[in-house]
């Protein structure tokens, strides 16, 4: 692909802190290489802001290779930008052309309050995991890995669900700010495997209860989460979560 440079107009959400009202700021990004990642473009813009003695744009990032799930940016109405199956750090500037105006917003959800600019607090996800996204293992020697037979198909499905990086794009993309795709991936990766079976009922009930408590919306099966998920987690996981939840609700002892 041919390399080119571009000048862009950025409309970036600026918000000092959680309590600030926040507003869009228009900035110019000059001489941006088409081979840069979207975050590298932000690095260039921030360098200039720092040189001018201004406050750089706060944004989350860590691995910059698509596996940490930190780079939460809503770009031109799309979670992680226009490309399918990518995080913002994997979005390259060749997705844009010279003269484009790009609107960048933080994830919008009551359960993900803005910390500063484009950085949001996703600890609601951590609390959902704490409510049941684990298996209890006795202390002592680990048993031989091969002593529990696992069906290959189920192992593959569990692995596909475990690809979830907890980035929150599903919540950001959903018109209801629902966290069902995230919760369903975390429930599925364990429910599909024998190690997850002993706690499958309490897990589904507790994680859904925590999800509701955090103020996420409910799922209306629009499929926007699946379309935006950088790890392409399937809606079949949400159906599985619904089955797990129904089964647990019908038979729970408490």
């Amino acid at each position, binding site marked *: 692909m041919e390399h080119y440079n571009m000048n862009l107009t950025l409309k970036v959400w600026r918000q000092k802190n959680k309590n600030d009202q926040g507003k869009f700021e228009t900035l110019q990004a000059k001489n941006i290489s088409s081979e840069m990642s979207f975050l590298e473009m932000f690095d260039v813009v921030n360098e200039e802001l720092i040189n001018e003695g201004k406050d750089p744009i706060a944004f989350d990032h860590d691995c910059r290779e698509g596996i940490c799930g930190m780079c939460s940016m809503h770009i031109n109405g799309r979670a992680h930008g226009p490309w399918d199956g990518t995080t913002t750090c994997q979005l390259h500037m060749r997705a844009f052309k010279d003269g484009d105006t790009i*609107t960048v917003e933080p994830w919008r959800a009551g359960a993900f309050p803005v910390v500063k600019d484009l950085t949001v607090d996703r600890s609601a996800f951590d609390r959902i995991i704490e409510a049941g996204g684990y298996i209890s293992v006795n202390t002592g020697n680990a048993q031989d890995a091969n002593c529990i037979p696992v069906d290959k198909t189920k192992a593959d499905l569990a692995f596909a669900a475990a690809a979830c990086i907890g980035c929150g794009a599903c919540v950001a993309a959903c018109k209801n700010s*629902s966290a069902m795709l995230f919760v369903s991936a975390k429930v599925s990766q364990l429910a599909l495997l024998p190690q997850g079976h002993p706690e499958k009922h309490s897990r589904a009930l507790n994680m859904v209860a925590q999800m509701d408590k955090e103020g996420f919306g409910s799922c*209306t099966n629009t499929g926007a989460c699946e*379309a935006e998920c950088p790890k392409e987690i399937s809606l079949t996981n949400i159906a599985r979560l619904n089955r797990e939840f129904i089964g647990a609700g019908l038979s729970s002892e408490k």
Partner: protein
Amino acid sequence: MKWSQFFNTSIGKKLLVGATGLFLCSFVIVHLAGNFQLLYNDEGKAFNAYAAFMGHNSLIQFIAWGLKIVILLHAFIAIQLTFSNRAARPVKYAVNPGNQTSSWFSRQMAIMGSILFIFIVIHLANFWAKFHYGEMPLHTYPGQEEPLKDLYLVSQETFKTGWLVVLYVIGMIGLSFHLIHGFKSACQTFGLNHKKYNGLLSFIGIWLFGIAIPVGFAIIPVVIYFK
């Protein structure tokens, strides 16, 4: 988890909306089958006999009242969920993805449901209320002793009014758009999402509930109007 807690969770409420929705899906099939008798060329003999049976059979009456409760329950919980879903995003996006990430139908459920609800109220006032509580013309068919309430005649007269025909067609467009997403969505809520069945469920949702049934309903007032 107690039942009261179970049905107060987001999934629990969705299960109620889905279950009532699927029940209403089964109802529209029966209702349409009955309505087709309006197109018979028998001066309404079959239709009026059917209406008299439906209006007096106690089991049918029990289900008919249950149906009204189900519609209210479906609407009430769905409205509640819609408001809490909107509240889950206090600050809206400046730019929205539109149809890039989800189908238009899937995002219009509340609006189409509201159109349908208004339609149902008008429809009940036009026929149900008139049949049970209003003054009805009577018709005695040859070979019958008792006269029948002539709901057939009422429908023929009602659909001579152009704007009412338009309203009924709009109501059926609302039904169509609501069910194109609604049927399959309810299946997903009950955990039914499997590649062996998804094709069939999409076909039933779109072609049967989304197109065939609303078109079937809409044809009747249009045919009567132009008769």
